């Protein structure tokens, strides 16, 4: 019955792959209201009926309808909602990831405005978790975004990653990354980590049992100098690029049904420096 109603309302477009038809979000919302189904359920029903929700039209040539449905069924854990985390939330919501569990205990301050997309001039003092929740529902109601406003300990990180297909490390500083890394390994969930300082950054996909860049960094507690990101700062393009690389790798991983084999960064680390446009992928 849902399928028949949807088929009546679909429209064709030359931009979709052959045999794929579009359906608008308004139509899905109206239909879902009558059926008592939410946005995510309606989008999955549409995809199952061979219809693509129009908001995902420009995803189609890259990912296709089957991967789009996998995104909607995916659960991603996101630790940190600052520079990397804000961009990741935005990109995953627009891509159509179905469930996001995110955490950050911080509130916005002026020094966040240069790079943190969730930080607005009139939002200083606001909890990052609350800003993320509002942004997620404003961008894509199909994404079930559950936020936790708190700095997590080992137990908290373990709870955050529970049931996730993939864990995204968007934390600040090196010390908390070790806790998240341990939680992901214990839960057997791949971890996609990234960090930046100045014009440099890295992204790595750490499978359970793999070494992580953070394993070599230490906790930073015994360092004589301030951390690199404090000395060099965190300018906007470096942060946005690292987050975009993370998001691209996350979607490749999720579209491949959770296999890390076909994922470019499995067991590897991508390093970049925007000062001389160096990009290098190396084995860990």
């Amino acid at each position, binding site marked *: 019955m849902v399928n028949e109603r949807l088929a009546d309302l679909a429209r064709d477009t030359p931009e979709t792959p052959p045999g794929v038809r579009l359906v608008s979000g308004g139509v899905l919302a109206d239909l879902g209201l009558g059926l008592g189904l939410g946005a995510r359920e309606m989008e999955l029903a549409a995809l199952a009926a061979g219809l693509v929700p129009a908001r995902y039209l420009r995803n189609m040539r890259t990912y296709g309808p089957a991967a789009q449905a996998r995104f909607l069924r995916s659960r991603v854990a996101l630790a*940190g909602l*600052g*520079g*990397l*985390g804000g961009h990741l939330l935005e990109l995953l919501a627009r891509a159509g990831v179905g469930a996001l569990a995110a955490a950050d205990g911080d509130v916005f301050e002026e020094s966040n405005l240069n790079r943190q997309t969730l930080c607005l001039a009139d939002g200083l003092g606001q909890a990052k978790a609350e800003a993320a929740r509002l942004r997620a529902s404003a961008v894509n109601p199909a994404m079930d975004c559950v936020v936790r406003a708190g700095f997590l300990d080992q137990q908290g990180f373990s709870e955050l990653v529970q049931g996730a297909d993939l864990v995204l490390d*968007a*934390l*600040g*500083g*090196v*010390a908390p*990354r070790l806790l998240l890394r341990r939680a992901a390994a214990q839960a057997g969930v791949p971890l996609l980590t*990234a*960090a*930046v*300082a*100045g014009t*440099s*950054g*890295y992204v790595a996909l750490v499978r359970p049992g793999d*070494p992580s*860049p953070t394993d*070599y*960094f*230490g906790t*930073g507690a015994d*360092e004589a*100098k301030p*951390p*690199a*990101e404090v*000395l*060099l*700062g*965190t300018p906007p393009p*470096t*942060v946005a690029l690292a987050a975009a690389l993370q998001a691209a790798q996350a979607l490749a991983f999720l579209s491949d049904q959770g296999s890390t084999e076909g994922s470019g960064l499995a067991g590897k*680390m991508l*390093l970049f*420096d925007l*000062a001389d446009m*160096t990009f*290098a*992928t*190396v*084995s*860990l």
Partner: protein
Amino acid sequence: MALTVKCYATLAEHSPPEGETPHAEGHTVADLLAELRIDPAEVKVIFVNGLHAGLDQPLRDGDRVGLFPAVGGG
């Protein structure tokens, strides 16, 4: 022949001119760090020709060396 050296983030100030340094036969990564006046404690991840390496790794003409410090910004 020489070594190609890429120093990331806080190590960038130690980069050799043009990113290259003459190579002395038998030198290791540790010798290279001494030549570039880099404190080994600040180098957390070393790559030689795209593979993770240690301080005692012997270097050869034409090797590409990457030096990465701890970075944690997000």
